[in-house]
């Protein structure tokens, strides 16, 4: 009875196309936004910020980026981490070459660089499809990580080969580096992620989203009804890589504080892919749900056994984590290939009719 939609008529196409045509969905969203913007910042501990809130947001954004390419446009990519790296290193170079630039602007601009590289590595998708394309994206993944290591200019010839985030201010407040407070960084990440999520929602609900889905579902038919496949695919690579690049810059500048080239290696690519798959390919909400699961799981595995008095070494926790994620992937693919997003929709359908059976 909470989710009764009877009686809510949409009286114009505009209303039907609205994001949340059902009032209960809108209410739910406002509650979530309230928690995100008001409740959490004032009640969360340092630990919660650093291990849960901030990484969940950043991983969600990266997964949204990947989802555009793989879930909406149907181009499987295994190189997400490398493009995050491009964003991170681009941001680092901008910060160090132009220290007067506002760091948040730098973070957003770094997406432009990763978008450019993304389009370049996306050109093969015009000729190569499916698994072969996935392997081609591995070329980008391995080559870029090698480049991050060998091209010393990227890390300012630092002897350790790593980049360190310096203290950076925006409008008088420290937003990055050891001096920045978690709550400030949280707001920056939340702001960027919210903004880009809105942009992606807009892009996917209109013509571009349909064009991408047509490219994914049956590219020959799409071609024949007027879709310029080249433009469609390259736009997907561009938008996707932009977002992934920004996520990469946030990853280093707003969370980890430092980075080595192997941070952006294949395991990170797979982690983002799992978030997108378990969350639900072709959805936006799913990425958030997937990130909550993937980020939350090791935390749960670490804290719960301790709380129950069962000692498990942290190495074992790590291995268990990997095993569970693997099983979850298989589980979801068997039970609900459309991921947590679809599970939520099914729950919602049930809620609409509850307490009646249909």
């Amino acid at each position: 009875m909470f989710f009764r939609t009877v009686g809510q008529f949409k009286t114009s196409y505009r209303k039907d196309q609205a994001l949340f045509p059902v009032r209960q969905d809108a209410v739910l969203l406002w509650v979530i936004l309230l928690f995100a913007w008001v409740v959490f910042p004032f009640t969360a501990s340092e630990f919660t910020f650093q291990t849960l809130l901030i990484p969940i947001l950043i991983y969600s954004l990266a997964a949204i980026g990947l989802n555009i390419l793989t879930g909406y446009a149907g181009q499987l990519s295994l190189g997400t981490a490398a493009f995050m790296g491009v964003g991170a290193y681009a941001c680092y170079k901008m910060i160090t070459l132009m220290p007067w630039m506002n760091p948040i602007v730098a973070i957003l601009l770094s997406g432009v660089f990763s978008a450019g590289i993304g389009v370049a590595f996306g050109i093969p998708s015009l000729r190569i499809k499916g698994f072969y394309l996935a392997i081609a994206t591995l070329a980008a993944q391995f080559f870029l990580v090698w480049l991050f290591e060998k091209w010393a200019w990227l890390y300012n010839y630092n002897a350790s080969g790593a980049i360190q985030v310096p203290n950076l201010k925006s409008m008088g407040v420290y937003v990055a580096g050891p001096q920045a407070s978690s709550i400030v960084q949280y707001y920056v990440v939340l702001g960027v992620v919210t903004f880009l999520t809105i942009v992606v929602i807009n892009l996917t609900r209109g013509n571009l989203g349909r064009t991408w889905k047509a490219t994914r579902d049956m590219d020959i038919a799409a071609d024949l009804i007027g879709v310029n496949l080249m433009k469609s695919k390259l736009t997907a690579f561009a938008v996707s890589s932009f977002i992934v690049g920004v996520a990469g810059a946030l990853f280093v500048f707003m969370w980890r504080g430092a980075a080595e080239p192997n941070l952006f290696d294949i395991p990170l690519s797979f982690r983002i892919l799992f978030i997108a798959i378990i969350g639900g390919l072709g959805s936006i909400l799913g990425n958030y749900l997937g990130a909550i699961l993937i980020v939350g799981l090791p935390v749960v595995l670490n804290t719960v056994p301790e709380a129950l008095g069962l000692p498990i070494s942290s190495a074992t926790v790590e291995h268990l984590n990997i095993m569970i994620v693997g099983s979850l992937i298989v589980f979801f693919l068997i039970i609900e290939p459309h991921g947590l997003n679809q599970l939520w929709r099914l729950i919602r359908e049930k809620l609409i009719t509850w307490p009646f059976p249909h």
Partner: protein
Amino acid sequence: MSLDTTTDSYVTPDGRTIGGVMMEMKNITLRFGGVVAIKDISFDIREGEIRAIIGPNGAGKSSMLNVINGFYHPQEGEIWFHGKKRGPMKPHEVARQGIARTFQNIALFNGMTTLDNIMTGRLTHMKSGILAQAIWKGKAEKEESEHREAVEKIIDFLEIQAIRKTPVGRLPYGLQKRVELARALAAEPKLLLLDEPMAGMNVEEKEDMSRFILDVNDEFGTTIALIEHDMGVVMDISDRVVVMDYGKKIGDGSPDDVRKNQEVIDAYLGVAHD
């Protein structure tokens, strides 16, 4: 009646106007490696008419539609559209010229609803750039509503209101065919290509589909070229017929003319070729 191939238009007995030549295929030859799918075929399609392409299985009819679509490029021959010779074009460019199509095996986008599938048909008419779409409010939203209105007209026309929001993968075959037709109509094409629109349908469904095809031609003036196996349908609704067999043209004229053509009868009865 004998038609002369000039640009003069004429009025049919049931009151429709058939215009001059819209599309002309001249000496088209299409080969796949050693196999000759289409051999030196020429025919034309006049504006406003319903042109049937018939022939036994494997005659090359679908390949001919693919050539018109720009999906296959003939090794020899020319295609003339609205009096201009057409250079080698990509399929999406051909689509933008006003040629839309349905497919023998349904080619709907299974990850989308009926409504979204038909909206993809409006693609060639939508103008908002990526920036406008990212902002949504204002230009993009307005355009979306306008095209939604156009699509709803077609949904009404084809009587598929109830399945608007259903994912097309869940629809029964007959309805999927109707949605595919709706998607093609949404493009407001000058030339509509239908590849076996009645395949797999029972008598009632065929009557419905025939009615829709005639209505489309009547109300919107759309020129239609269709491949069809049901002879009754072909004789009933088409103005002119092209007959293909083994990649060659063996008949071209009004349904009555073609029906009496001995070669055509032979082809269908399976008389051995020399």
